[in-house]
């Protein structure tokens, strides 16, 4: 009784063999040349070798070490300026802004959440080394190494002081940017930091029009509001700020003791110098204490509420993912399947992948968005809460000091301090 099934099987085998044969056969077989024609090789220029990538890491480490020496030991604004110009030339114009530490945080985020993705050693080095330096010496990276920071630093023309309240509110933006960048990177959706990098187009001397315009706009604003990207957007600056706030050592304005002459206060274009504080009145203290208690109780509430809100919004966030977007489109508007104008749809339809597989993939991504948006909301809520709390915490300061979180160690204040190094000796007599 092998007849029917056997015949079917036989036919099937033949078809399969023919199909396989046709796959291996070229439509137009390669000719046998008689004139001694030699076939050229396909052009495949080699990528940059690993050794060159190591050089990048080496230059980064050396530049950071040089920056530490210039900012903490030599106390030379001129030296920092020249180092920063070198860094701009090397990391910016020569290496064309890639890889940069700011963008590397997305690679790290993706590698933490996507088991199938691993970063290479130089990406990890670019992420970790500036953070470690910040933990020990402050934001040396921002002041003298980061090409994005340096290009803005060089155009500072006539910096205006922003009102404290505005600064605090704008200061929340980097956290927002960081949170969304990590969410989009971790879900494999997009690397938004790289996509909206305002200066990379300038480094490459060519980019889409809107990117160049964005860069030029930032530089124009940067003439008056110094380092606008660093202070009010840069997501890596958030991490560096955390490290720097608790850094072991940090640049000091005066080489010896502050005489509270106030000369340095106006020298800082980034409003990162804090004035000495007097003693608080008893009334003010009790007011602060009451507010502190209220805010402290509010923090978990804010965090939960923000998490809940963003979680509600996750279907919209997930639409940023092209897979989710395509699946949504095809499910809600099935007639779109026959739309040949839309390249994504027509390619998907031609690929032979089923709609079920696509929606399954989309659901998985949406699921990670649902979880991620909770974390993101809680993170943003906490940031907001602690910013509030910070407003009522009183910290006594003697003398003018750089705000360790905000100071980028550019060294502009050095030359304004009238206290001489040798005064140290006379003071301690």
């Amino acid at each position, binding site marked *: 009784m092998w007849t029917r099934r056997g015949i079917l099987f036989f036919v099937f085998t033949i078809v399969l063999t023919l199909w396989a044969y046709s796959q291996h056969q070229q439509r*137009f077989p*390669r000719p046998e*040349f008689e004139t001694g024609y030699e076939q050229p*090789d396909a052009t495949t220029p080699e990528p940059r070798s690993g050794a060159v990538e190591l050089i990048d890491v080496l230059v980064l480490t050396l530049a950071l070490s040089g920056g530490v020496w210039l900012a903490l030991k030599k106390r030379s604004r001129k030296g920092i300026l020249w180092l920063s110009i070198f860094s701009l030339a090397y990391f910016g114009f020569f290496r064309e802004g890639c890889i940069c530490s700011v963008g590397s945080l997305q690679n790290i985020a993706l590698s933490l959440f996507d088991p199938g993705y691993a970063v290479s050693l130089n990406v*990890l080095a670019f992420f970790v080394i500036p953070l*470690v330096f910040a933990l020990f010496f402050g934001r040396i990276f921002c002041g003298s190494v980061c090409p994005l920071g340096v290009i803005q630093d060089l155009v500072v023309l006539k910096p205006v002081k922003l009102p404290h309240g505005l600064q605090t509110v704008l200061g929340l933006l980097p956290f927002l940017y960081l949170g969304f960048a990590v969410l989009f990177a971790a879900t494999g959706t997009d690397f938004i930091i790289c996509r909206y990098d305002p200066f990379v187009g300038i480094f490459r001397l060519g980019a889409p029009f809107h990117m160049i315009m964005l860069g030029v706009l930032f530089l124009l604003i940067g003439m008056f509001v110094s380092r606008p990207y660093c202070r009010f957007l840069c997501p890596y600056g958030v991490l560096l700020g955390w490290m720097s706030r608790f850094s*072991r050592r940090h640049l000091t304005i005066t080489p010896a003791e502050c005489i509270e002459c106030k000369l340095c206060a106006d020298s800082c274009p980034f409003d990162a110098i804090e004035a000495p504080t007097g003693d608080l009145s008893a009334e003010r203290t009790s007011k602060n204490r009451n507010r502190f208690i209220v805010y402290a109780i509010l923090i978990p509430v804010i965090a939960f509420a923000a998490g809940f809100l963003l979680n509600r919004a996750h279907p919209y966030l997930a639409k940023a993912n092209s897979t989710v977007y395509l699946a949504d489109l095809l499910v809600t508007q099935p007639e779109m399947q026959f739309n040949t104008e839309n390249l994504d749809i027509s*390619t998907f339809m031609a690929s032979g992948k089923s709609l079920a597989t696509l929606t399954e993939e989309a659901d998985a991504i949406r699921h990670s968005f649902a979880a991620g948006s909770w974390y993101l909301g809680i993170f943003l809520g906490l940031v907001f809460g602690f910013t509030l709390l910070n407003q009522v915490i009183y910290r006594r300061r003697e003398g003018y000091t750089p705000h360790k979180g905000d100071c980028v160690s550019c060294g502009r204040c050095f030359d304004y301090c009238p206290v001489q190094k040798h005064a140290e000796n006379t003071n301690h007599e």
Partner: protein
Amino acid sequence: MSDNKYIDRRNFIERSFRIGLGAAVAGTAGYTLLKLTRRSYVWQIDPFKCTQCGRCQTDCVLPVSAVKCVHAYDLCGYCDLCGGYFKPDANELSTAAENQLCPTQAIKRQFVEEPYYEYIIVEELCIGCGKCVKGCTSFGNGSLILQIRHDICVNCNECAIARVCPSDAISRIPVDEPYIIKGDFSFTNKS
């Protein structure tokens, strides 16, 4: 004395945070190190997945795309009527511009011997639009392929073309084998 106490407390808090942050960085680095690859990665197009949609030309961050047509000569049939060189409605098989498929005339047609012609990509002119690749894949052997040229590519953290590629043909591949060139079908069929 009370002053010292205050300073001590602040120092203590600072140190605790410092250690905490240091541990966080070390933890992240360590976790990443666990699956760190010693090999670096570069972006590349899988010619077997590529559908020649034309986005390589438009979406690269560089002014002129790092994607160029590469000729895998192993596969070429050296046809007189080349689907990658001539427009489907070409008037005659000549090198006249109006017959050419390539918008920048980046393909050079050279006579080898009767009836065979050699086709050479002039890389300075190629913009990576993939029109010739589509022509060759539809009508010929598919010996013209799009590849990311690593002497031009800046190796972005995330390739801007990969993000919009409708057929997911662009992925990171190890740097030791940075090209996926179609070869003789009888022995290579990488995916």
